[in-house]
């Protein structure tokens, strides 16, 4: 449990990026030394369609301020049709979350191809700014959730 709420508050944003397009695009942004905010953390997945809506719920529960799902543009999916499923799943999830009180800016999906480094940078900057403006997320956060169960479970812990 460690949600810092100091004055220099930086949002914590998770980005699920597909290996073939967006992750490559993010690498390309690095290669081109583009700059973007530090508060976005990328989780690599083979395809945006691997992202289970439960991951998103889990992220909010654990205190993420925003979640981004990125994949290839429809029609360009490395696995040919995965992102069409992504599109349906997350259009519905976004609406369901909004319905439950989560600002749709907190959960977004974007198509970013392997060559769109600038789009990756801009998306990250934009989402980051939007979420900064919204402030910390306090909805769905497991405020009284005991993390110790987890800690114990994580194999080993400290020797």
């Amino acid at each position, binding site marked *: 449990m*460690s949600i810092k709420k100091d004055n220099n508050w*930086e949002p*914590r944003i*998770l980005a699920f990026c597909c*290996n073939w397009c967006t*992750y*490559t695009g*993010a*690498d390309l*942004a*690095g*290669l081109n*030394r*583009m*700059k*973007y905010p*530090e508060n976005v*953390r*990328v*989780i*690599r*997945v*083979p*395809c945006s*369609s*691997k*992202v*289970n*809506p*439960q*991951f998103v719920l*889990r*992220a909010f529960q*654990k*205190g*993420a301020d925003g979640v981004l799902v990125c994949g290839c543009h429809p029609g360009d999916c*490395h*696995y*040919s*049709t*995965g992102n069409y*499923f992504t599109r349906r*799943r997350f259009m519905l999830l976004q609406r369901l979350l909004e319905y439950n009180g989560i600002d749709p800016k907190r959960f977004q999906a974007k198509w970013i191809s392997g060559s769109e480094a600038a789009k990756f*940078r801009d998306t990250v900057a934009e989402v980051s700014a939007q979420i900064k403006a919204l402030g910390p997320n306090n909805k769905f956060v497991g405020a009284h959730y005991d993390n110790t169960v*987890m*800690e114990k479970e*994580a*194999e*080993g*812990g*400290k*020797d």
Partner: protein
Amino acid sequence: MARIGVFICHCGTNIASVVDVEKVAQAAKSMPGVAFATDYKYMCSEPGQAMIKQAIEEHHLDRIVIGSCSPRMHELTFRKMLKATNVNPYMLEIANLREQCAWVHTDRAKATEKAINLVRMSVAKVGNNKPLHTSMIPITKKALVIGGGIAGIQAALDIADCGFDVTIVEKEPSIGGHMVMLDKTFPTMDCSACISTPKMVDAGAHPNITLKTYCEVESVSGYIGNFEVTIKEKTKFVNHDLCTGCGLCQTKCPTKVISEFNQGMSKRPAIYIPFAQAVPSKPVIDENACLKLTKDKCGICEKICPLGAINYKDEVRYTKEQFGAIVVATGYELADWKKMYPEYGGGRYEDVITGLQFERLVNASGPTEGHIVRPSDGKEPKDVVIVKCVGSRDPKKGKSYCSRACCMYSAKHAHQILDKIPGSRVYIFYMDVRTPGKGYEEFYDNTRRDGAQYIRGRVSKIYKEDDKLIVKGEDSLLGRPVTVEADMVILATAMEPAPKIEEVVQKLGISMDKDKWIQEAHPKLRPVETQSAGIFLCGTCQGPKDIPDTVAQASAAAAKVAAILCHDEMETSPMISSVDQTKCSGCGFCVPTCPYKAISLVEVPGRDGNRKVTKKVAQVNEGLCQGCGCCNAACRTGCIDLKGFTNDQILKEVDALCL
């Protein structure tokens, strides 16, 4: 108990100049499960790798996290390195500290904090990694080529020359496809039959090639290296083992029907060899035309066949064969312009012909022995109009693409007419002249020099008045409507995919584009591959193209096939989905989400209380699964999971990042 080793790379100064790598390594030491953590200048270098190996031994590490450049860069390098150690190569995670951290940030404190976070994420994930092992699947050293046109023949010959067995399945009685129908080939004007028939003969005689003419692919199952294909042999009614191809039956057959080979401009008997140079040069009986088969009369061929090869009771046969790779070369068909263009007479006028009909007209072995005459009255035409883009580049008629070969063959036709008919005039209505090929522009130049009139504009209407075909167009360069009174009109009709392409695509589990051309895996970098591993394509089934491109593509596909067949077995990626069948409800929701049709429902023994029952559960075909994970998110119980990217691993990453 996990023993994780964390190795933070400086990447020279690339990472270290922005990220406090020592601090990151220090922080890693207190992460759950971490037994060892250090930093080093170049992890990917020889000494760097040696250091990791040493640390593995010294600290009995079983999982590795490397904080370095993007995993897309060196994941394979480090996996290879781990092969030489006790650690399974898949017990490795890479935190992307360079491309997605050091290079994109400037604030040292924040970048370091992020780097620690990323390492924590990788540590959390690797703690849930399981050793994975690549498996080897054996490869059937035999290829199937679907379609026996020039593309299929070329691909088959190249594969066969590499020493592998090839089977060509061709739906027509002879291989050869469209190329043998043509007269001359642009831009060199060599005789099409002269260059294609030797290849047909080679294919027929090659010890590694099996011809299956008058056959179709019935069904395909399996995956790369191990396709099982059922081939349907249509009823030939002639025993080709006995038949010597003497042709006596053809001459005596009383029934005459329209010849497909001559594009409807001549007749053939009901028992027929489609053309003189056919391979195999043995007849089949057209069951829709034969009197014996339709009305139980005649039976002459059976009576006169000296070898008793005729069998009216022939039946469709199915054979099952194994193949290691498949080449699709199903080719094209000309679009049926008669239905599409009522304004061009809709087929009412015999003297409005297609380019392919003209090829037969001008061909010395064609119905007129090479004399260009009007089909209606046999007169030699003086004024000929060629209309390009009939069906092509016409979204209203359903095809927006360019058929690519028409500009050149229309120039060729113009040249042939001007050459063969003294005093003739040729008008070519065009929208653009597209000649991107070696020697093509020069060919176009020559045709204009020959006297062909190029008029820029689409033709609006073709109709007949008295003896003449009236062609109304606009000369859009003049900005004036123009009319040509022609004796003959040649339409450069659009190419479209072979009629049964949907069936083929569906059987093979590959995909088509909006115009039903087969979709290549990548338009630039994987032009002869399909989405499905082990299935390749070449020629016009992929899109309209001319002979040189087709042949080049065929050889490319053959090389791809040979690259598979030259191995005895192949390694499969272990990062594929698998099903926990004890939890699976067998609802089948994962099945339609798989782009590779890798998931099927199978029956397995199970228990219901004390009873033994048969359960239906999902199963992943390891040869077909490509590891996208789309099915994972469709599964409500979470029982189908992608190895290397399991739900649990990703949830751990989420937790670690939010910590």
